């Protein structure tokens, strides 16, 4: 850059820079407008709706009611005080608990299993390409389709999973995996882990492949035990990639909707924040109430992301390392 500056008048150079910057804003404008229309504006409207009593059938007829959808104190004629609103709604807190439980457990297993699969794929062996192709299949299958496939496999009377378990002598009678309160969450977790571990594995693999091979070579020559190599070399070096992968997955898990909607419809044991919000928004005609719930979900996720970025010092923009 520097020697080019010398060979040409400064004025023209500045001109060029200004022209480039103008063009840049022109190029960015359509994308920013598009994102504003589909993301920022609807989000603001959702938040606004949550402070009104808008109904699905009359979107413009709502009145401002303040925080009533969130929490409202009401005194009955008998003098007893009751609390209403989402924050006093046991169904909402059940959904919060379900979502948190689902997210933490699924992401934990996906990370561990993903790392194992990635370590396998990182080894040199015959047929590695086949394994990679095979693990891409669960990832490629649409969520709704995998939910249906597993619903059939987990069927209480004709499902193959029950058949396998009975033949192995693990259970005596078929279990209603998706319908029973006790097992519905397990069923959802199994399907989600099955579907998403490949994604985690690929992200982990990319991280593993950035580790220089000679480090392993040196460790091998020094006679370091493989387990120690994993904990002292592989894991610390793959940690940055793993951190990003975990946050991506966590955010995805916190907003889960489709799998649960199809696999365990109306089960109290698996109803998550997204599911209960949509139910109120669309199905129960409690549009404003559902808006309040989805606003809360957004707030929870926003707080979580800020905390994670702040605590983990995750460099998401990728500018620093260049």
């Amino acid at each position, binding site marked *: 850059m520097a020697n080019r500056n010398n060979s040409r008048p400064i004025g023209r150079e500045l001109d060029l820079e200004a022209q480039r910057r103008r063009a*840049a804003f022109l190029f960015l404008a359509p994308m920013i407008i598009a994102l504003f229309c589909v993301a920022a504006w*609807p989000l603001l409207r959702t938040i606004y709706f949550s402070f009104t009593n808008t109904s699905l059938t009359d979107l413009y007829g709502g009145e401002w009611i303040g925080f009533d959808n969130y929490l409202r104190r009401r005194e009955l004629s008998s003098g007893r005080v009751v609390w209403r609103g989402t924050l006093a709604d046991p169904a909402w807190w059940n959904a919060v608990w379900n979502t948190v439980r689902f997210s933490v457990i699924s992401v934990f297993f996906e990370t561990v299993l993903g790392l194992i699969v990635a370590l396998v794929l990182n080894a040199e062996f015959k047929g590695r390409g086949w394994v990679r192709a095979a693990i*891409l*299949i669960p990832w490629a299958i649409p969520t709704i389709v995998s939910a249906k496939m597993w619903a059939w496999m987990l069927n209480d009377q004709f499902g193959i999973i029950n058949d396998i378990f009975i033949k192995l002598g693990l259970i005596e009678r078929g279990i209603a995996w998706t319908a029973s309160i006790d097992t519905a969450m397990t069923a959802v977790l199994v399907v989600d882990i099955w579907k998403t571990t490949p994604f985690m594995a690929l992200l982990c693999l990319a991280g593993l492949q950035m580790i220089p091979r000679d480090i392993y070579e040196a460790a091998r020559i020094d006679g370091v035990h493989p387990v120690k190599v994993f904990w002292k070399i592989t894991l610390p070096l793959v940690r940055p990639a793993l951190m990003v992968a975990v946050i991506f997955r966590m955010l995805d898990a916190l*907003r889960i909707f489709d799998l649960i909607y199809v696999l365990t419809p109306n089960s109290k044991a698996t109803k998550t924040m997204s599911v209960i919000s949509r139910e109120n928004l669309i199905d129960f005609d409690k549009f404003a109430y559902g808006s309040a719930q989805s606003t809360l979900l957004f707030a929870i996720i926003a707080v979580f992301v800020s905390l994670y970025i702040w605590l983990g010092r995750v460099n998401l923009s990728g500018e620093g390392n260049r």
Partner: protein
Amino acid sequence: MNRSAADWVRLSAFYALVAIIIVVSIFPFYYAILTSLKSGTAIFRVDYIPVDFSFKNYATVMTGRNFIRSVVNSVLVAGTTVLFALFLAVTASYALSRVRFRGRALLLVTILGVSMFPQIAVLAGLFELVRFLGIYNTPWAMVLSYTIFTLPFTVWVLTTFMRDLPIEIEEAAIIDGATPWVIITKVFMPLLWPALVTTGLLAFIGAWNEFLFALTFTISETQRTVPVAIALLSGASEQEIPWGPIMAASVIVTIPLVVLVLIFQRKIVAGLTAGGVKG
């Protein structure tokens, strides 16, 4: 135990793990194909290897209940969404990767933030927008709403890709007096093809699989996309779930995806990890 025996144990344990990974990955899809080929009461008998080869379920799916219409809807919606996102993303990524301006890092993080949005948070607002624009229960409602996840993703991946292109090419073009538009269309586009194929494919898969918006913004059966059609496929009565046709429909919509993914394996893996790790 001597050394070679220990090696042998280790090797067979490793291959056992490989076998488990492959079987667990493939089995559910294999079982769906197996089930879809059964007819009548054979479906209620558990088989581990295919014994029936009847295409009756496929015929049922293809002839009835607007299934073909749903496939066409899905192709149209996903295709339009991808073209739209790529067009907006190419120009934006050029600006984000090549021009230094204040607030660039913040803008990038904001874009990433949008892709991480809980989609339910915009559902109420989008519902109002869709109603306002008069596109409720049309494919355009999906094209509009899918922009929220396809655009940030394509911008993000293309920006990381363009950052890695050598700066000299662009400098040569600038010296020759090329405008930014010419640089994008004539210099960058030919180099960008691989990245465009990857991001386009991933965005297509994302749009093809989307469920929440498609379920909420359509009401009539003829406007449904494939995931909604499969989720709501019902039998003659409420209690009777038509597993055979559901599996056939599942196989029909999954096979093209699996084939695409296997063909573009390397590109997809590169694209996925560029969006995640490198970013």
